[in-house]
């Protein structure tokens, strides 16, 4: 390599590095800045909140909104019910979806295919479409505003996506592996647990993570199908009113937003690697 082309290469390298960091900065700014703005809104005293131009470093930061919310909106109770509902949903939902996915992938008959078609077709039904009849139905079967009722609805909402992803994943696991195990005398249950499940780990982790976040953000299910049981996501529309009964105060909205967001950010930061690996490995098998 001649000296000339060497410097050229160096310049080229330097140039790409700069470009990369510029792109990095742009993307990071677009994502983080609004989040930061919501944060400073939440720690600015209400009286100083509305300024033009915006004060990106508030003069008198305060955690007043947060302490107010913690004292007055019953956060602990809401976190408790959120954890119960999502916890059970993920555990039970994942178990039955793994079973279902295996069944759909490994057994073929007209009836089974039809059942699978049904599950996928229900994916096309937007929640709002059936919300009102479902509301009446939940009341008729006495599951309205109960933990079992909400959990059933949550599980139901994760089923189509989870079954679809997991079924495709199982379908890619060669049947020969199971057949080999079966020759070695493994029965059906052993095959499922010893051969298939370990291979499904990344896919299961992925769907769990996606379902976890979707459940946490699920707003309309807990809003419509319960009164007394209240979860975190609904709290955003239950903020204290000022005296006119209609205004929703931005200082409290932003604080509540952060209360909901914080666990998610921690979750994402801690599990970044698992989330990424999961999504990469099993997320979308096109």
């Amino acid at each position, binding site marked *: 390599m001649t000296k000339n082309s060497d410097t050229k290469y160096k310049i080229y390298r330097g140039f790409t590095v700069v470009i990369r960091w510029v792109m990095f900065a742009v993307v990071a700014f677009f994502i983080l800045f609004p989040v930061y703005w919501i944060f400073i809104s939440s720690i600015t005293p209400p009286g100083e909140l509305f300024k033009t131009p915006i004060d990106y470093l508030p003069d008198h930061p305060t955690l007043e909104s947060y302490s107010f919310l913690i004292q007055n909106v019953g956060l602990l109770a809401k976190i408790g019910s959120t954890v119960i509902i999502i916890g059970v949903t993920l555990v039970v939902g994942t178990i039955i979806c793994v079973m279902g996915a295996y069944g759909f992938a490994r057994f073929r008959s007209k009836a089974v295919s039809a059942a699978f078609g049904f599950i996928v077709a229900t994916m096309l039904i937007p929640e709002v479409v059936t919300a*009102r009849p479902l509301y009446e139905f939940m009341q008729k079967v006495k599951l309205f505003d109960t933990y079992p009722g909400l959990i059933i609805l949550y599980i139901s909402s994760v089923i189509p996506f989870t079954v679809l992803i997991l079924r495709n994943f199982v379908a890619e696991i060669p049947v020969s592996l199971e057949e080999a195990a079966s020759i070695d005398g493994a029965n059906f249950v052993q095959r499922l647990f010893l051969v298939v499940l370990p291979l499904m780990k990344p896919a299961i982790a992925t769907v769990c993570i996606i379902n976890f976040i979707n459940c946490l953000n699920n707003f309309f299910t807990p809003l419509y199908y319960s009164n007394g049981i209240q979860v975190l996501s609904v709290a955003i529309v239950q903020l204290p009113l000022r005296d006119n009964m209609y205004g929703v105060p931005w200082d409290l909205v932003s604080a509540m937003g952060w209360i909901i967001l914080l666990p998610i950010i921690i979750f994402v930061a801690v599990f970044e690697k698992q989330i990424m690996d999961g999504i*990469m490995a099993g997320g979308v098998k096109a």
Partner: protein
Amino acid sequence: MINKKSLQWIAWVLILPVLLIRGFTTIYPILKTVINSFYDIRILSGVHEFAGVSNYLNIFKDQKVITTLEFTGVFVVVSMFFHIILGVGLALILNMKFKGRRFLRTIVLIPWAMPAVVIGMAGKWAFNNDYGLINDLVRRFVPGFELHWLINTGTARAAVIALDLWKDLPFFAILILSGLQFISSDIYEAAKVDGANAVKSFFYITLPLIMRNVLTLCIPFTLWRLTGFDLVYSMTSGGPGEDTSLIAYRITMEAFTNLNVGYAAALAVLLFLVMAVFSWFNMRFMNRFED
């Protein structure tokens, strides 16, 4: 594959739980919705009578719904267009090998994980002319800049779409990234040797390889655009006028606020049909694409 008759019962044991739960929460509401769509049910006026297909006919006479359908179309097409363009771009950035990658991959998950209602409420403020983030930033470069985003049809729609992209694009990009990962670097090396530059290798190698992935992703993302309404619900309430009203938002309003249950059901059935047709076409297209 197991298709021995004698073993079929195992299949049913396995799939019964998901079938039961899914069926339990969907069959009755769907049937009820379809039936309701043929009735004129206006609870607030105490009307409940058979109406044949008049609910369906009214849809096309209702200016509110026509505007809504128009925006829903614009929203889906424009948003998906940018999803694909910017999503592939963002995926490429996330796939670059450099020190900031891990950080970037972490933070892109934040908007996706944020509750839509929070984003919507923040969006209403962010696009406010006087106190909003967007105009404040613009004003730092263009002093005296004034734009009332949410009062004009075009800008309000742009604002809703922009917010939707902010929330959903990162997730889309990550899913594309999972496809990018599988392209081995050998191909690029080989292309380099053949004298292909970065642009060329993108169009001749990367794009064709991730195309199928992108198209697959378009199905659920388009369906989500059609059924989602949280952003509009908390950001614009469909305003100004009905200009940013989405079909799913319209259904909610008719079903839960105006209590025109029959009409809402007809809209719902219509939406379902649109989605079914879209999915069918998409499958067909995908199949052809494969051949």
